């Protein structure tokens, strides 16, 4: 078994979050192997991501660059995932939390925020006591009113099948 290839597949699986690819791969790797490197590191990283411990994740990732940088686009994929998680939970959040989650600070974060404000409907306000509060666009997860309640409604196609019988 080629450990390098398996490790790369697992990195790609991490990038696929929130899809369950990583967990599915875990089912197929024997227990003994999972306790060796590089699998142990990858499992730890996956655990951090799943429990949203972004700070711990980026720290650990920094310590293990050599495993991760073989797959291009890793950082962007994880940032995308982090943003996804944040947009599900928050309507508004402090800048510090955002920075920690996507591992950006200073000028690059400012540029990023500008880009989002212009293109994706974010908002940036001044918080009382310094710092910034970022407002995230509304979606059905962070604004429950927007969630369409389809539980009790029956789609039209199903009802239309009854019409010939009713008349």
């Amino acid at each position, binding site marked *: 078994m080629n450990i390098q290839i398996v490790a790369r597949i697992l990195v790609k699986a991490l990038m696929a979050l929130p899809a369950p690819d990583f967990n599915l791969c875990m*089912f197929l790797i024997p*227990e003994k192997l999972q306790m060796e490197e590089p699998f142990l590191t990858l499992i730890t990283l996956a655990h951090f991501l*799943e429990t949203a411990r972004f700070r711990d994740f980026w720290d650990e990732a920094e310590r293990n660059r050599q495993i991760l940088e073989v797959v291009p686009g890793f950082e962007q994929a994880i940032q995308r995932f982090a943003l996804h*998680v944040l947009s599900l939970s928050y309507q508004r959040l402090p800048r510090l939390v955002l920075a920690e989650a996507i591992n950006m600070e200073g000028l690059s974060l400012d540029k990023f925020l500008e880009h989002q404000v212009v293109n994706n409907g974010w908002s940036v306000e001044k918080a009382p006591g310094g710092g910034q509060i970022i407002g995230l666009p509304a979606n059905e997860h*962070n604004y429950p*009113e927007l969630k369409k309640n389809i539980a009790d409604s029956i789609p039209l196609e199903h009802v239309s099948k009854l019409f010939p019988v009713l008349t």
Partner: protein
Amino acid sequence: MAYESSSYGGGYDDSYEERPELRYGRDAEQQEPDYDTNFVPDAVQSFVVYLYRYIREKNVYEILQMYELNFQKLSERMFKQSPWPAAEAIAPYVDNDHVFCLLYRELWFRHVYARLTPTITQRMDSWDNYCSLFQIILHGNVNMQLPNQWLWDMIDEFIYQFQSFCQYRAKLKTKTEQELALLREYADVWNVYGVLNYLQALIEKSNIIQILEDDKDGGTNFTAQNGYDFQGGGSNVLKVLGYFSIVGLLRVHCLLGDYYCGLKCLLPIDIHQPGVYSNVVGCQITTVYYYVFANLMLRRYVEAIKACNQILLIIHKTKQDHQASSQFQQILKKNEQLYALLAICLSLCPQGKLVDETVNSQLREKQGEKMLRMQRNDEAVFDELFSFACPKFITPSPPNYDELVNYNQDAYRLQLKLFLSEVRQQQLLSSIRSYLKLYSAIPISKLASFMDVDEPTLRLYEDGSSYL
């Protein structure tokens, strides 16, 4: 090897039940169990003669009677603790027909697995028999109509013996030198690739996926005729084996822990509609059971609950019909396992509306107390139910024959461990979930004060929960 329709002079009124030895009463045939596998008692002789004739006549109804009832009756009466006579011994009575002998041998081995413990040589010989049988079906021109029950049982047994072999192979502690030598030498026997290849070959050669596609537009009537082929003396064997192999692949992939792949293999069959699979009770239950299990492991709880509900209702309604069948015990066992799976799914993902009232009341009766404990995050109950309900996982690769340790539990332990870590993750979230249900928007500080944790920890829980 083609069977032409009847040129045999017997006639249809000469049925198995009317044969002479029965007229003198059943006890006329009572014998001591005989371990001489070359001795063929009269009862067995008539059995094979009639079975051979019915197969040549393509009399599916009679074949099914012989297969379902008479084989079991004779096994019960005469071969409770011993094998049937060897195929070589009965061959003269059936014109030494090669295919019939392969079929007979398949039944022979099945009997050994069911009533006795197969030796390593018998396990390997059974593999050879399956290889020969499948080769003939794939490449020869087999022209027979066999009952779907038999064809399903063939695939079912094939995978069961594979599973059994993997378990056997991994128990190295008690192996003799001779057994180890055989295992090392014949690495091809019951090799995972071999098994998967045969199932895949049956699917491809029979073109069953295309047939099922055409069925939907009414191009073919495979489903309408329940797989049988009555036009022009056709044969249902290859097609139906191909069909059941689809379910076979789902099962094998689940045993290996590859749930996503298993579900992909099942795609050609729509389990929300009746089909050929639903006409063989063992097949239907097996298919839905593995479907439910795969969805559970993929965290698709809602889908698993729906399918569980569907099959439990069906079992409930049709249980009585199968009381006499040899499969009844199996059906009952799967019923209990499915209730356990349903209990797990509902504890991880409460969905009151999806479960039928009948099923719900049975569930509360069987698993009510356990469900309460699971809702209180009692991990031991999850462990217990999972271990009861899960299939017997296998490790596909051969073990290291030099280390005489038992490996057979490894696959199961891995799946259990991963499952329990999933469960643990979900535990953290149930309390947050209940608060979030009340509030459409809540500042983190307020939520933190409710839950009595500090803010950063709460952020973690929160982010984790919304992601899941």
